[in-house]
């Protein structure tokens, strides 16, 4: 008998999602066209199929959205008791759960991420975030920021394309819980779940203007963060844009939090639980196609076990399933955009040209769409560009070390400081290492775990401020 266990296609149905041919901006509780009538297209990165036309907000549209947010803040939201605000957030969380399949399918279609991830990680964690902060809305006096902390006003929020709905939740939930109103700009390649979220706000009868969604690209974002009536800027994205925002708000009274890039070290000691470490390496860099700011993109492995760990890693990579994001068995989906694919290719080619050994498992990539195979570079030194620059793709650089001190030194030898991983069976070594790593999130014997109660954010050029947990409230209170 033939022992080939081929998993038949197991596609999640698209039928649950109703994608409109065009989308307006969500301002003051209603969808409306952009003033100038400009728009852009969003595509399915797995097929290059155009999904919808989306309105592009210019300065006038952003101004209208900020005005709506200000009005809603002054007249309604800042006056509403926390307990009532909280109930709106609970309501939104429940609707997100009820519509979770729809959100997950739409997210996978617009972003390219596997349905397994949008279904099991993005959407449930986003809903959990609203649940978490809903409960804070009437307890802010106990949060450690003074007995009667006050909201800031209007928050301008700009989010990236790697976790569109989840990043929206990280931004909107704490802002609303603290009594702010928001104008949020989703990324131009992934606007659809934010627009579906706007519908959810309508469904929850959230007062108009409390949440406004303005779609567009960099110019829209610039107009939003530099709008004079925005009290608070929250941004997640690249360090370069974060820098520009920090410059733009200099000299103003705007409060800023930035969650930027990373080049995390995932440190594997010779006494690591090796099978779980391999899983952690895979999850660290191939989760979400490596489109993760806290991805474990540098594997620091102790020289004495480097060969064995690599062998196991390669064998494991051979079982990763790449392809249709809507197939429930897909582990690695599509790269989010042609532009990002070009960047990953460029840096990978540079890695090869710099002499690092490049390896990918044999895998068939679809003919259409944007795809990049899971890739490992060996023989990488700290001097290589692939060891220093954020690739934001499924590309791992392997660097070896000899002693714990060397591991820490190499891990910290980067302008970034978002996250890090430690794999060892020795508890005291975990604590020793964790205390020396200059990174905001340290995963020991695990990687890429997220929770609404857990503060997330970076050191150094990975940005400032924390999202999640009690700490996440600070960004939205004075």
């Amino acid at each position, binding site marked *: 008998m033939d022992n080939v266990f081929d998993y038949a296609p197991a596609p999640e149905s698209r039928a649950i999602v109703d994608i409109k041919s065009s989308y307006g901006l969500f301002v003051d509780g209603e969808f409306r066209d952009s003033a100038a009538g400009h728009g852009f297209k969003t595509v399915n990165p797995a097929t290059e199929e155009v999904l919808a036309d989306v309105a592009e907000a210019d300065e006038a549209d952003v101004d209208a959205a900020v005005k709506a947010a200000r009005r809603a803040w002054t007249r309604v939201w800042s006056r509403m008791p926390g307990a009532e605000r909280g109930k709106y957030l609970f309501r939104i969380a429940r609707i997100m759960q009820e519509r979770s399949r729809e959100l997950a399918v739409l997210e996978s279609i617009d972003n390219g991420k596997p349905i397994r991830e949008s279904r099991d990680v993005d959407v449930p964690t986003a809903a959990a975030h609203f649940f978490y902060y809903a409960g804070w809305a009437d307890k802010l006096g106990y949060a450690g920021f003074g007995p009667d902390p006050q909201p800031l006003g209007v928050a301008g929020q700009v989010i990236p394309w790697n976790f569109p709905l989840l990043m929206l939740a990280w931004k909107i939930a704490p802002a609303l819980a603290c009594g702010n109103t928001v104008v949020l700009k989703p990324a131009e390649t992934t606007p659809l779940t934010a627009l579906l979220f706007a519908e959810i706000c309508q469904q929850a009868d959230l007062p108009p203007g409390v949440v406004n969604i303005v779609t567009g690209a960099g110019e829209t974002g610039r107009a939003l963060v530099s709008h004079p009536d925005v009290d608070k800027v929250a941004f997640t994205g690249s360090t370069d844009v974060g820098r520009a925002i920090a410059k733009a708000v200099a000299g103003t009274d705007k409060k800023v939090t930035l969650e930027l890039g990373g080049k995390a070290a995932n440190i594997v000691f010779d006494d690591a639980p090796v099978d779980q470490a391999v899983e952690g390496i895979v999850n660290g860099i191939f989760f979400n196609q490596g489109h993760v700011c806290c991805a474990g993109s540098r594997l620091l492995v102790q020289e004495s076990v480097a060969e064995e760990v690599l062998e196991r890693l390669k064998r494991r990579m051979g079982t990763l399933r790449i392809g249709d994001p809507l197939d429930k068995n897909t582990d690695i989906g599509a790269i989010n955009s042609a532009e990002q694919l070009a960047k990953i290719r460029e840096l990978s080619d540079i890695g090869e040209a710099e002499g690092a050994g490049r390896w990918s498992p044999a895998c068939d990539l679809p003919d259409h769409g944007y795809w990049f195979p899971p890739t490992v570079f060996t023989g990488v030194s700290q001097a290589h560009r692939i060891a220093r620059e954020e690739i934001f793709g499924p590309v791992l650089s392997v660097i070896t070390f000899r002693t714990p001190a060397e591991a820490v030194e190499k891990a910290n030898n980067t302008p970034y400081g978002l996250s890090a991983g430690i794999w060892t069976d020795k508890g005291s070594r975990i604590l020793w290492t964790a205390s020396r790593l200059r990174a905001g999130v340290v995963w020991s014997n695990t990687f890429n775990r997220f929770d609404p109660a857990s503060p997330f954010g970076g050191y150094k050029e*990975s940005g400032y401020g924390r999202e999640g947990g009690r700490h996440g409230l600070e960004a939205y209170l004075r």
Partner: protein
Amino acid sequence: MTPPEVTRIDVRKTYKLYIGGAFPRSESGRSYVVADAKGRFLANASQASRKDARDAVKAARAAFGGWSGRTAYNRGQVVYRIAEVLEGRRAQLEAEVRDATGLTPARARGKVDAAIDRLVWYAGWADKIAQVTGGANPVAGPYFNHSAPEPTGVVAVIAPDDPLLGLVSVLGPVLTTGNTVVLLASEPAPLPAVTLSEVMATADVPGGVVNVLTGSRAEVAPWLASHMDVNGLDLTGVDDPVLARTLEASAADNLKRVRRPRAEDFADAPGIDRMTGFLETKTVWHPMGI
């Protein structure tokens, strides 16, 4: 002939910089005149250059691992020791404050006492701030998840003109939490800062943990704001909004944590935001299993 009456000649003090635990003159050889509140000559102070700023940052960076790695209890002891030594110099400080501000002796004494008390307050925070701002996070999974504050790193502090109380109010919080500091003293009233340096040098503060520059804000602060090995910038002493904006924009190059200048009365209860502004939150996850 009767001999002329002998009058004792003052020993005038040279006010130097404090870098890496030593008291160098500015490498530029420059100094500037410090006048009292009525415009009379008080002393010459070193006029720090960009290279002095560079050296100070280097010293602060070298001292960071050791200082941040000390136990919080020990840092608290060291900061308290500064207060103890200051207490023994109250008369000198009172005179310096009076000279710099023209306050009455009683008010100047009040400022000195408040400054020493403020340091004692911050000394006590060293081993409590982590308990107040950190803690266990109840994540939905089999993990022990814990957040704790850690010092930001090298922090450049542009001190305000309130010569002693303002000075310790900006230095105390960054120091006690484990940061190392490059402090640019008040430009018109730098002498208490130099005296404080001398106190720190004898009060168990390791060399390089606090470095004190005197000189021109407009000249030195931009070098600190743009320095890529400085992690935080406190602009409290920058009165000029244009300069403040320029410095903040410059600080963005490596995403320094910036505390903007704001109206504040140092006599007020300080709160903890001067500490938390230069603390990072580190969150560590660990699975719980057998």
